[in-house]
């Protein structure tokens, strides 16, 4: 198990929800993957909710023709664009979002070295956590109409609660792989508020695709009385307790 390790204002493998800036959170997730790649740990984790806002996307979006204009417009609207290392498409980050990231060392050729395993490694305990809180219809799947949709969202009633993505890198000096799997859960705000940010980016890059608020759901909609700050450590404990970590 990883030891506590400070990255800027954040502590890796802490059981508490942390409140960095978006940029600090993204840097800490990179450090989490680096820690496993350098062989310092076979498992690390992070839970964070940003104290500022940003629209976060893979760097390849920078190549879009309308990107400079879109960046300026979103920045003026209070949603500066930031880049992340995992795949997918733009996702808003704000104090209404809680992020969990897990870095795991995996053996190539073993059952743990593929992306489907990685999504279940994060998503299954997340569904179990929701079940323990009384949410009986949480599962993994696609949410057509949602922004940054994929096959492995954590859904409630078929609506996207948590978006998931990954990054894979070879562990230095061997054939093992290091996986960073990340989930972003909308906790507060209405789905309309966050979908509007992504649709503003779509409009700014002149992409006709628009996303639907009805495809999303916020944790507050299903668990209005939940104190997220005190509930997150239990989710982390479930993630950390899961088996399937290759020994270093």
């Amino acid at each position, binding site marked *: 198990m990883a030891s506590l390790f400070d990255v800027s204002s954040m502590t890796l493998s802490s059981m508490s929800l942390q409140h960095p800036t978006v940029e600090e959170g993204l840097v800490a997730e990179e450090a989490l993957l680096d820690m496993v790649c350098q062989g310092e740990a076979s498992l690390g984790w992070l839970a964070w909710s940003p104290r500022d806002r940003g629209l976060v996307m*893979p*760097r*390849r979006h920078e*190549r879009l023709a309308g990107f400079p204009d879109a960046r300026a417009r979103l920045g003026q609207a209070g949603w500066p664009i930031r880049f992340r*290392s*995992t*795949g*997918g498409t733009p996702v808003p980050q704000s104090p209404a979002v809680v992020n969990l990231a897990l870095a795991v060392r995996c053996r*190539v*050729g073993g059952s743990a*070295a*593929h*992306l*489907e395993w*990685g999504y279940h490694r994060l998503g299954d305990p997340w569904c179990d956590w929701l079940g323990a809180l009384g949410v009986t219809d949480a599962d993994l799947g696609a949410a057509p109409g949602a922004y*940054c949709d*994929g*096959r*492995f969202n954590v859904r409630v009633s078929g609506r996207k609660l948590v978006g*998931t*993505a*990954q*990054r*894979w*890198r*070879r562990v230095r000096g061997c054939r093992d*792989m290091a996986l960073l799997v990340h989930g972003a859960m909308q906790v507060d705000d209405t789905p309309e508020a966050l979908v509007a940010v992504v649709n503003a980016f779509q409009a700014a890059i002149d992409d006709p695709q628009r996303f639907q608020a009805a495809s999303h759901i916020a944790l507050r909609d299903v668990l209005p009385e939940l104190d997220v700050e005190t509930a997150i450590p239990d989710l982390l404990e479930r993630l950390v307790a899961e088996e399937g970590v290759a020994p270093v």
Partner: protein
Amino acid sequence: MNTPITVPEDLWEGDGEGVITAWLVDDGSEVAQGDLVAEVMVEKAQYEIEAPVSGVLTIAKQEDEVVAKGTPIASLEA
């Protein structure tokens, strides 16, 4: 000697195709064995591709091109 850089067969399971999302070094650059040279995305998962040997890089597949496992995407001239 010319060595191909292929999308590794063992990065992901199944026959799904990926997209080259980034070349991390320029065409014609000299790279060292183990350097990260490219990224491929499959189902919102980014995979890093390393140089198998040292040499001068010639890119065969451009960013945003679709690739399958085993596809040669570049070569390295030692």
